[in-house]
């Protein structure tokens, strides 16, 4: 069942239109990633959906509420981690958690979050003296302290080292098991592939692709089967095979692109003609590849 339904969301800053009609649904318990290059409107979209920015057009429904009217019940169930948001420099980690837990009806114990986010040893340290990564972890902890049913996390692991990033993914995995619905804005394909049930790719304020990370990865040409060129190979016959989308020859190698079953089909066809594919390589495109081919970041500018 859809917990979040967005349709036709538009937003302009002055004469510059940032969002050109975003449609998005997020089911209860789902983790959806919002990907896209800098300036594609990811943060604006998430902040409009969360009611932090006024939208120009379209509708947003979160659990039956319109965030633009700022209902208290929504603020109780939705935890938001924002980019570039600080605390007073002299506020200590433990004090920040205590303060924020006073806002919610049933907060998570501060100790649990301190442990989870590797901040237990820094509980008495002032915010201004924390490293960027520690500040970031505290920021995520504050977004989750109210036991939100829904969490919006904007660039949650930016500035974290790989180990800290893994730990946070692990914790978000636990929250997913508890049924927490999440909308993640991220730059990291690895993060999206690891955490997200579904991703949407934004480009210039429009959704240019959406689906599971695997679908998106497969969607741009699917599997590539390549092997050493041999005069005996009938390239036209390969092109006619079911599921094959393209065949090309480059620097002594034949490359066949096609759907998920195409490697089997190609090898069977070659075997049927008595040809052994030498130096065989089957590559699955990654989400990275798909992302680059879907967004302008991948085109030569």
């Amino acid at each position, binding site marked *: 069942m859809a917990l979040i339904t967005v349709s036709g969301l538009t937003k302009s800053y002055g004469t510059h239109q940032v969002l050109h009609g975003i449609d998005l649904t997020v089911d209860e318990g789902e983790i959806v990633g919002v990907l896209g290059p800098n300036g594609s409107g990811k943060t604006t979209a998430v902040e409009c959906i969360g009611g932090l920015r006024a939208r120009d057009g379209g509708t947003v429904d979160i659990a039956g509420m319109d965030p633009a009217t*700022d209902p208290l019940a929504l603020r109780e169930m939705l935890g938001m981690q924002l980019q570039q948001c600080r*605390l007073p420099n002299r506020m200590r980690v433990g004090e920040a958690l205590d303060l924020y837990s006073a*806002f919610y009806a049933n907060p998570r114990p501060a100790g649990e979050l301190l442990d989870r986010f590797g901040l237990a040893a820094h509980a008495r340290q002032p915010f201004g003296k924390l490293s960027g990564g520690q500040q970031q972890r505290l920021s995520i902890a504050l*977004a989750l302290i*109210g036991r939100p049913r829904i969490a919006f996390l904007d660039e949650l692991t930016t500035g974290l080292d790989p180990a800290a990033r893994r730990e946070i993914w692990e914790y978000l995995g636990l929250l997913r098991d508890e049924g927490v619905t999440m909308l993640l804005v991220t730059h990291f394909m690895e993060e999206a592939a690891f955490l997200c049930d579904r991703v949407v790719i934004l480009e210039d304020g429009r959704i240019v692709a959406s689906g599971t990370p695997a679908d998106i990865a497969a969607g741009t040409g699917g599997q590539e089967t390549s092997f050493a060129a041999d005069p005996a190979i009938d390239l036209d016959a390969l092109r006619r095979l079911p599921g094959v989308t393209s065949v090309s020859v480059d620097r002594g190698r034949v490359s066949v692109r096609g759907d998920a079953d195409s490697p089997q089909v190609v090898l069977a066809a070659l075997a049927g003609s008595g040809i052994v594919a030498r130096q065989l390589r089957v590559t699955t495109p990654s989400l990275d590849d798909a992302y680059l081919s879907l967004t302008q970041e991948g085109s030569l500018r």
Partner: protein
Amino acid sequence: MTAATAPATRSLATTTPTDRFTRAFAAHLRSETRLILREAAALIFGAVLPLAAIIVMSAIPAAREPLADFGGLSVVRTYQPTILLFATSVLGLTIVPAILGGYRQAGILRRLRTTPASPATLLAALFVVVAAVGLVVAALIVAIPAIAGAGLPEHLGWFALAAVLSLVAFLALGTLLAAVVPSPQVAAGLGNVVAALMWFSAGLWLPRVFFPDWLVTLTDLTPGGAATQAMIDAAVGVQPSWQPFVVLVVWTAAAALVAVRTFRWE
């Protein structure tokens, strides 16, 4: 009802908005109190400096003697309203815009918008904490000369009313500065300029008894001049007129109205 029979988790239905505001407000109040006590710079000009001045003056015997030039008041009692006004104006006009603007610039108010506690709760707590510091400092500025033997203002009630109204007016004007000036540094800097004008109106450089009539009339229309005149009258036992109180209330109301209409969380 005992804690044992209460459900393990408090549901939304059982907590009223008032309960929730009270909890959030109390938490902000604790937090802002701790933070302002750690912010030495905020307290040096708004509290330590005026208190040091009144202690030094009270300690000098000659400054406690009544002088005919000052209308029969001693030096310390003549400067008492000015020093008090110095403290309330610094707290209201420079500390409030610096903290408030800083919170807005750091995204703290924006972050609070995503929680069930409105950022207005933080503002309310901040006003209460700054006002409490102002009241304690003002009370000490009145009490210290009295303890030293220089006596209390003749009409203590009117004196206190003028002092409190000046504090409230400066809090409102400081909030107005934070509302209309985006940068906390610029807002606090402007606050310093306005505060210096208030100190002049209050007679910091030239006691008000030496002001020419036109300057009295002009400065009477400022919150600094009005509050000081009312405090001086109350100090010598003259019933203060209603004008200074009206001036203070009008400034407060106008500043608060514009501040509420123009203040943005981000």
